[in-house]
């Protein structure tokens, strides 16, 4: 492969990661507020189908994206209502919605399968696209891929560098403390769950109106992405930059699956296509293993200097969820 071919492939990896970045950051914001949205897999499918249907009917890509965000926000609203107002398990409601939205998208999308709707195209940035290497890699993408880069920085800035971001972290970590500081915990949780849902909902149209344009029902190849999104959120430790790293890692693994196929004739192509999924989830083992009790116990037996090094490495990989994730808040 020539240098430029590799660059173009890597640019493709960045574009392929864009929807995952949107979904993971949306979920991260929602979980930071304490609302676990397990419906992600169905939500992405439904917003992909819904936004495709809207773009097809209106011939307008922008309205399609808007529909995707609206579907994401609406589904998150159901999760928030069931858990925050009706005090039901977020896992149960989220799981049911994950299956329900998937089936709904296949059922409603059946009549529009295989049709052609408008799609967004590449938008090279004049002046910057000429820069060697970076030009090809970063500045010849489509609008949503640019936005995915910006979103990572914005989300980080918002969560860690602003006052409302501090409150967001507060309602997910110590809701009672945030409450006495004057935060309306449940209202904010509703708001952030819906904002997160709207952002994650954009992942659907990025697929159906851009990188996997069209709606092909069960063979759209989107089933399963949402579960990966949830695990990358954990891998990312609820931090935007680390989460983005997880998204790009996943996209690279998927790309490698395609590239390595010719050189690994003994492995069926179907296996290489699904391989990134288990690999990505098994990274969770490294992220979580530092939390296990037996690790601590066996570390204690090691000599001091070795122990310190391993403990440091484990801490670096470790990710601790927001303390009040999934826990309902009631004022006393």
């Amino acid at each position, binding site marked *: 492969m020539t240098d430029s071919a590799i660059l173009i492939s890597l640019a493709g990896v960045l574009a392929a990661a864009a929807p995952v970045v949107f979904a993971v950051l949306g979920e991260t914001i929602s979980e930071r507020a304490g609302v676990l949205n397990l419906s992600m897999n169905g939500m992405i499918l439904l917003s992909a189908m819904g936004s495709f249907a809207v773009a097809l009917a209106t011939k307008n890509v922008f309205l399609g994206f808007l529909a995707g965000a609206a579907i994401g926000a609406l589904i998150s609203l159901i999760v928030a209502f069931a858990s925050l107002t009706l005090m039901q398990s977020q896992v149960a*409601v989220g799981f049911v919605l994950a299956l329900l939205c998937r089936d709904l998208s296949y059922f409603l999308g059946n009549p529009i399968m295989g049709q052609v709707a408008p799609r967004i195209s590449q938008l090279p940035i004049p002046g910057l696209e000429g820069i060697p290497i970076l030009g090809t890699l970063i500045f010849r993408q489509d609008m949503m891929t640019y936005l995915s880069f910006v979103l990572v920085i914005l989300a980080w800035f918002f969560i860690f560098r602003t006052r409302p971001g501090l409150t967001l972290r507060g309602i997910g970590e110590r809701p009672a403390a945030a409450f006495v500081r004057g935060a309306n915990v449940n209202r904010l949780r509703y708001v952030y769950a819906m904002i997160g849902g709207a952002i994650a909902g954009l992942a659907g149209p990025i697929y159906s109106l851009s990188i996997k344009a069209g709606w092909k029902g069960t063979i759209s190849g989107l089933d399963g992405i949402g579960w990966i999104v949830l695990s990358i959120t954990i891998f990312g430790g609820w931090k935007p930059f680390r989460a983005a790293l997880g998204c790009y890692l996943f996209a690279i693994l998927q790309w490698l699956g395609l590239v390595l196929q010719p050189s690994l004739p003994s492995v*069926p192509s179907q296996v290489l296509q699904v391989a990134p999924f288990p690999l990505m989830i098994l990274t*969770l083992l490294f992220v979580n293993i530092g*939390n296990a009790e037996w690790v601590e116990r066996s570390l204690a037996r090691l000599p001091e200097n070795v122990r310190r090094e391993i403990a440091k490495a484990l801490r670096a990989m470790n990710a601790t969820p927001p303390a009040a994730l999934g826990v309902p808040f009631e004022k006393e």
Partner: protein
Amino acid sequence: MRDNRSTRFAFQLGAVVLALGIATLALLAAGAQPIQAYRNIILGAVGSWDVAANVLVSWVPLLLATSGLLVTFTVGLWNIGIEGQITLGAIFTTWALRSLQSSAMDPALVIILAVLAGMAGGALWAMFAGALKTFGGVNEIFGGLGLNFVATALNLWLIFGPWKRPGVASMSGTLPFERALWMPIAAGSSRLTPMTLIIAVIAILAVYAMIEGTYFGLRLKAVGKNQKSAYILGIPTWQHMMSSFAICGVFAGLAGAVQVTSVYHRLIPSISSGYGYMGLMVAMLVGYKASIAAPVALFFAALNVGSIQLPIVMKLDSSLAGVLQGTLVLFVILGQGARGRLLKKAKVRT
């Protein structure tokens, strides 16, 4: 408002009506005649002896999966990895059948050994999820999902690799086994095997008896209600979680074994057929109680089989069954919450 049988029933009825309402809206949105669609589903499920037998064929693995899940739910675990456990059960069963099919052993014995191998395979996969949770700190939901993906990859690799059909491998699965290695089919039916019905009924009864009638079941409940106090009271928590995973895996593996020995007679890519996820829905719908799991699972199986007619007769997608099941479970959960809130308000007022 008082908490009694009739208000609870009213809320459940409301959930059914709302679920039907949403499904009707979906049908209208797809440009179909709702009444005609429901008629086709009903006819497709009970219209003839043959389709009714198909409902029973699909009821068996669903009830087996639900039975297993009731055990993990009792200790408060979300065993989403059940899909992979069913798949591994099917893989182990196929492996046993393949290695014993040319031996001189009695076919009946071969089938029994293969089913036992399937149960072991399911249990093994479930204990992986348990080990990831206990020793790796990976939440069982995500560990289970990961293992589901691994099981899918393993299954595809076997079908397209070592176990591929002579000639060209295909999505239609491995070469079917000889008729002697099928579970005996009822006279006059094309697929129904009475033996599997007996297995399913025994399974749900055994789970009911275990949870409600044994000291072990009581300890499982204690761990599920409050892990910390159970531990303080001297119940080793992780050992109980691990055993509940293993028990659930046995049932899931049994479901996979049934799929291979009595439904498909070979290994296919989607051998678990979504029964694991559907079992989770059934378990949620029955409030994690074994007593009414069998009829509810039968209803879900009927919806599934009935909706197979939709693409053929009305050019609709058969996922309408999933839409009906999903909305039903969703509204039952929302109804529970709404009832709880109204009861609390009523209590404050009096």
